[in-house]
């Protein structure tokens, strides 16, 4: 397993720190905000871009370390744990009590699709 040394890992990181910086543009923020379903105002965008750039630039060093290992050597194994396949009922009033807007046993929300679409 050990085909790297501490010094080797450190030197790769120092090298990449000088050359590798993640750039986050205002367009990146708008695109990711849309994906996240979170509104970010024009006033908030520059600060958000700066924070994302700072954290992601730091985090990008995982690439340095991961490259020390070839794909063949790393297998990320997951395991599946299942619960019994039994339906569990909860009283709907308890759940609907927290609803911002309800009608009978329905959660009421704004229009999803306009008529004619």
């Amino acid at each position, binding site marked *: *397993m050990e085909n*790297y040394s*501490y010094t080797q*890992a*450190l030197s790769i*990181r120092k090298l990449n720190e000088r050359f590798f910086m993640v750039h986050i543009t205002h367009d*990146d*923020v708008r695109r*990711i*905000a849309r*994906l*996240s*379903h*979170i*509104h*970010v*105002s024009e006033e*908030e965008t520059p*600060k*958000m871009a700066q*924070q*994302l750039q*700072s*954290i*992601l630039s*730091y*985090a*990008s*060093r*995982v*690439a340095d*370390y*991961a490259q020390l*290992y070839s794909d063949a050597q*790393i*297998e*990320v194994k997951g395991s599946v*744990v*299942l*619960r019994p396949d039994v339906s569990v009922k909860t009283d709907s009033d*308890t*759940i609907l*009590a*927290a*609803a*911002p*807007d309800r009608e009978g046993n329905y*959660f009421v*929300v*704004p*229009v*999803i699709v306009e008529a004619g679409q």
Partner: protein
Amino acid sequence: MSLYSFITIAELQKKIAAREITPQEVLEFYIRRFEVFDQSIDSALEVFDKESIMQKSGNSGSLLGIPGLLKDNICQQGRTLTCGSKILEHFVSPYDATVTSRLKAEGALMIGRGNMDEFAMGSSTETSAFKKTKNPWNTECVPGGSSGGSAAAVAAGLVPWALGSETGGSVRHPAALCGIVGLKPTYGLISRYGLVAYASSTDQVGILTTTVRDNAIILSAIAGKDEHDASTIQQEKKDYTALLGKPLKSGIRIGIVENALNAEGVDSEVVAAIEKAISVIEKNGAQITRIKVPTLDYAAATYFIVSRAEAASNLARFDGVRYGLRNKSATTLSDMYCNTRHDGFGQEVRARILIGNYVLSAGHAAQFYNNAQKVREMMKRDFDKLFGEVDLLIMPTHPAPAFKIGAFDDNKLQMDLQDYFTCAMNLVGIPALSLPCGMSSTNLPIGFQIVGSHLSEELIFQVAHTYEQVTEWHTKHPEGF
């Protein structure tokens, strides 16, 4: 009042059993302490009324009459649950978390809700939408985070125990900054049912107390397999105090993580205090070796990616549809989602969700998320190998004593790096305990961590207890409480 102010759970259990004081009197005492002292530290979001506290708890058990505070991301049936966020400001939990019901079954009294960083995202309790908790040792300083309310309350003697939650260090970090004991258990040892999810592959309930024995007492009450949480380990209930006070096994091997202790930015007083602790532990029978753990240097970067990715997924449920805040002026569903989440989430939560979706998105996932998963796997193997060579590790919990409120307002990276020494254990799933080992020249606590392999809580407690009993840090309390 002062006889009970910083009393331990162990001592309180004896006094209640001997009928020197009733559970009702104990509760009245601690509710009064919150009334008198919490205005200076703002540890609790809410302290409940005496009647409902007594009514909701069991009448017998090992923790009969012992009150504690629950971080406000742990469900208590019929109580408000905010996670420190406006998006859940008026949400009432319809059920008890497993940890809550197990504590109630032992007669423990749930006294209130502990303040926290919003959705556990932060290291200072400053991102709470409602109030900023202060460190009882210096109220201009932060208590650490994200379980800062719970830690501050225990440190100020307002409760003998509190629960927090760990995702990257959020129990150990405030424990160290507040001078108390904080446990992050093995992943899967304590049920996450009823703990609001942040990063599901690392989240764990953690325990905050003033002594190691008290910590083991609470763990004994809440640990163990839970049918409601498929990620819990097949582990029956046990008594985690069993080894306390017994002599350490001869030649117990403890590795000092050099690249952590000597990392850039660690305060020299922190290093000095930990070196003293190491020599005390060595004098008490441990065999000390100095080691390097290279993957540790990449833990924070890996943690940033994995935790934010999982958070982006877990926080997608807060959309204004079924519960919580809803932006009522939106006319389309999409606007409702976007505006609700803008209005309901603070800046830090929104930033972390965006980062999480960025590292998972097409064109970036390979560079960030997939690589982070690989490094995480490498880290697990490194620690597995390490625990073949040593029994436990010692390293810093935090880089420096508690910082001033607002110190990192303009430097989010530096704030996030408060997790630097703690997050590896969350990624790997191994247990770690932070306990006090000194005071800085500015009269702020210094802590250190003892880290063990999977399910080694008893050994960690035993070594920590041995250290605690030959030192006096656990008897020191902030003035004015």
